[in-house]
């Protein structure tokens, strides 16, 4: 069983690809798992009216974000038969091509893992008090909006 209490999801800067590999490796000991689903958000160098996004700077209202993430986690564990679920979100500066969000769900079967991962990503984007400031190459910025 996974622990179910509020935990920190925020990491300073980008999430290294090697950390994701290590997280996957740790699950080899849980032989009741049959499928993992992973979503990774990567900073895209959008072109906005001729300006190129070179990084996103993330800020949060941490206390509320962690409480909300706890609620999302509880809801998802109640809804899907998951073995475990891990969420990491960057704060501070994340450069283009770097990973800013890592959602990782595991289950005995593929469908709950996939559905839980997708639902978690949607809820994170809609419900977590996190803001992204898109920093342009050269100078200037704009505030990110989620679709």
């Amino acid at each position, binding site marked *: 069983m996974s622990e179910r209490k509020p935990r920190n999801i925020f990491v300073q800067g980008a999430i290294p690809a090697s950390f994701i590999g290590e997280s996957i490796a740790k699950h080899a000991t849980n032989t009741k798992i049959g499928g993992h689903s992973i979503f990774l958000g990567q900073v895209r160098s959008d072109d906005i009216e001729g300006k190129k996004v070179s990084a996103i700077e993330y800020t949060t*209202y941490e*206390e509320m974000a962690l409480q909300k993430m706890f609620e999302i986690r509880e809801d998802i564990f109640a809804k899907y038969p998951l073995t475990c679920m891990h969420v990491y979100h960057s704060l501070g500066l994340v450069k283009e091509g770097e990973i800013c969000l890592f959602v990782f769900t595991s289950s005995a079967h593929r469908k709950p893992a996939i559905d839980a991962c997708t639902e978690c990503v949607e809820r*994170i*984007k809609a419900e977590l*008090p*996190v*803001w992204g400031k898109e920093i342009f190459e050269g100078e200037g910025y704009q*505030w990110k*909006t*989620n679709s």
Partner: protein
Amino acid sequence: MATEVMFFGQLTEITGSSRLAVADVRDTDALKEKLFQDYPSLSAAKFRIAVNNKIINDNTLISEDSKIAFMPPFSGG
């Protein structure tokens, strides 16, 4: 009585600060009215208010101990 209010994201560009102390407001409607007077462009901004980490939709009583946050649309991920 002074209530501390937190601002996030692009709202900090309107208030010039991520925290303001607002005197003599007993509910969120009074708080908004006061802030709109001091920062007129705040009234045109999109935001939601959280009181004690919960988003509120209706006018809500607040005290000195309330944790109040003005938050623009979320854009995490």
